[in-house]
């Protein structure tokens, strides 16, 4: 594959995330030529193609695709990621898989096996890695700019959220969990990228047999003086301002989601807030889905590791499985704690 030729891309699964993010990102990218949509609901796929003025091949299954493609975005319900990714890889097609990598660690391992066998690239759609202030924070963290980090707390919550076309999100089996998978896994990926895999994980969640709507993780990384204690909360019922606060040797650091800047509140100076950002803010204006798809294309063309590899995607899956294995019921006895309110 030469880097000057357009990268021929198919999108598999024409649901809300493809409509709202992957298709616009692919169309905005100068290197990409969108050549096919694959979705069992070809009528809806055709309607969406015409929304974007696209005259491309629309088929119900990968096997029906006649177009030569270099890569495919897989944006289907989670339980379909593995079979579709393996089918693509076996056909010599590189894949960018929407997060999470698969529904289970076992399926994730099958994808990695197929990746090795085919020699193709697998990238995982953890697009929040491209948040400008996260990239800056990671760079500073790697240089030990903040000194020792002792604690962090993260939260992300919305009262409800976007609706899927297929309602698959309401089925725990299809999703592989609840809000921890749908929302939380983005942070888990970044968290592993920052601090590695936690040594201890405790999950409190409110599932009553279906996908949980609220999940709280309590974690420990390392031990002794280097120990980091972590908290992460995800909600589909309550608005929680998305972001992370870290307790560091230099002071508290506020890393609000998807901002250009991060804020350092130096210890001992309560009236001071230091804003840190990369020298050129204009470079942060491209949406993270476009950055993600372009990274995928470049990793295929330059035969290099993508931003989030299948192996990294597998780590997030392992953490999800560990957390669900250690889950406890989130107490909802609001009326029982009498007098505790005020």
């Amino acid at each position: 594959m030469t880097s000057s030729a357009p990268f021929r891309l198919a999108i598999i699964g024409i649901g809300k995330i493809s409509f709202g993010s992957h298709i616009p990102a692919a169309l905005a990218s100068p290197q990409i030529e969108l050549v096919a949509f694959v979705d069992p609901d070809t009528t809806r796929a055709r309607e969406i193609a015409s929304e974007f003025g696209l005259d491309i091949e629309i088929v119900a299954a990968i096997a029906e695709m006649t177009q030569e493609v270099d890569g495919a975005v897989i944006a289907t319900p989670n339980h379909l990621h593995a079979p579709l990714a393996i089918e693509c890889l076996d056909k010599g097609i590189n894949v960018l898989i929407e997060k999470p990598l698969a529904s289970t660690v076992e399926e994730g391992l099958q994808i990695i096996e197929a990746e090795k066998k085919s020699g193709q690239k697998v990238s995982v759609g953890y697009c929040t890695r491209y948040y400008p202030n996260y990239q800056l924070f990671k760079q500073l963290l790697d240089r030990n700019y903040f000194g020792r980090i002792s604690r962090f707390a993260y939260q992300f919550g919305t009262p409800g959220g976007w609706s899927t076309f297929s309602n698959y999100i309401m089925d725990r089996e299809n999703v592989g969990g609840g809000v921890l998978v749908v929302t939380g896994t983005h942070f888990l990926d970044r968290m592993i990228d920052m601090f590695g895999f936690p040594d201890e994980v405790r999950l409190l969640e409110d599932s009553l047999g279906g996908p949980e709507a609220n999940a709280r993780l309590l974690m420990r990384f390392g031990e002794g003086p280097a120990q980091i204690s972590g908290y992460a909360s995800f909600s589909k019922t309550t608005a929680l301002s998305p972001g992370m606060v870290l307790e560091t040797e230099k002071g508290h650091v506020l890393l609000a989601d998807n901002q250009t800047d991060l804020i350092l509140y130096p210890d001992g100076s309560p009236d001071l807030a230091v804003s840190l950002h990369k020298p050129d803010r204009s470079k942060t204006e491209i949406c993270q889905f476009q950055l993600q798809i372009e990274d995928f294309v470049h990793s295929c063309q330059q035969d290099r590791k993508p931003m989030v590899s299948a192996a990294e995607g597998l780590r997030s899956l392992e953490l999800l499985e560990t957390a669900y294995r250690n889950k406890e019921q989130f107490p909802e006895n609001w009326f029982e704690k009498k007098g505790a309110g005020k």
Partner: protein
Amino acid sequence: MKKVAVFGASGFAGTAVVERLLKNKDIEVVAVIHSDGNAWRLSRRKDLTLRQVDITVPQQTKEAMTGITHVVNCTRGSDEVMLKGLEILLHEAKQAGVEHFVHISSILIYGDRPAPASVHDTAPPDPQGNSYGVLKLKQDNMVQKAAKNGLPATIICPPNIIGPYSLFLNGLVNMIKNDQFGLLGDGRHACATVDVDNLAKAIDLALFNAAGDGSRYFVTDNYDATWAELTDYLLHLTDKPGLITIDQQDIESHIKPPKVSYNPLKSLKHLVSSDVREALRKDPLLCKVDVFFRGLVAKLPGNMEDRVRLGIEGPMKIPKVSSAPPINWQFCSAQMRGVFHSCERLQQELGYTPDHTFTESMNAYVNWYKAMRGYDTEFADLLKRLP
């Protein structure tokens, strides 16, 4: 077996109704939702099937009514959903032979300054131009008409709904945090409330005990709470040392509707203003026309170009920049309602007693708020730093 369909089941009130009815093993509950995005609280239950229906589509609504004996309408949405949707719901419920239809109204049918007589639910409603109140009253009239035409129906009319997950309380906490709320005077003005579980209980009672003659019942916590009492619970959830105080004159001066005047000359000037021309210049042909006319004006003698511009745009306007708190005056004006609504008729006719007191409900909300935000953990100090 009774089969109850709760339309608008994923909303705050709808979820409480579903959760209450599920505890009664003699009832089969059908939770009807518009979309899955907001249904997370319900979908975490394995014992409940969600049914997705657009109530503005008659066929979908008709199918959803199959086998249903009782209906609760908790839907909200656009005017189309509220009016056309309700019309379809009422029609299909009657066609399906539904035994009882319960509809949720709002005390806003008595407007922003309810008459003293509106203590009682027998008082004639008057929304006084409050747009939501006007819409809710139209709905009440439709339900009462349906009751007259043979669909047993009851209307339950709540004030501010409180308790865990309360949207009203969430909004108020945010306003206190952001200096958008001011307490009127000493805060002794009436703040009518009902805990969401108490509301669900009233709906449950109405479904199976009411006459179904289209009567409207107030439901409250049967406690005369004041704004000072209510906000005292919420202030502790913020880092504010105290509430901003305002007076009636402040509110009245801020909520006067702006005068709308129609001035053809002003409209014409707006058409040739730089804002409009800038948008038009995005079209290459219109851009050329604009360049041509600007060229003509530039050739005019003296300072004519400046005078033309001043004539069209008017003098520069520098807006006043105030450091005063950004009070939400419209919301704050609710403190001037001044009426405690009585749930006496609901008590006498349907045997209603609140399950939770105002104090219990507010404490539960505070417990919920703290738990959802991790304020009950060792990470509270970090989490409170998030905006």
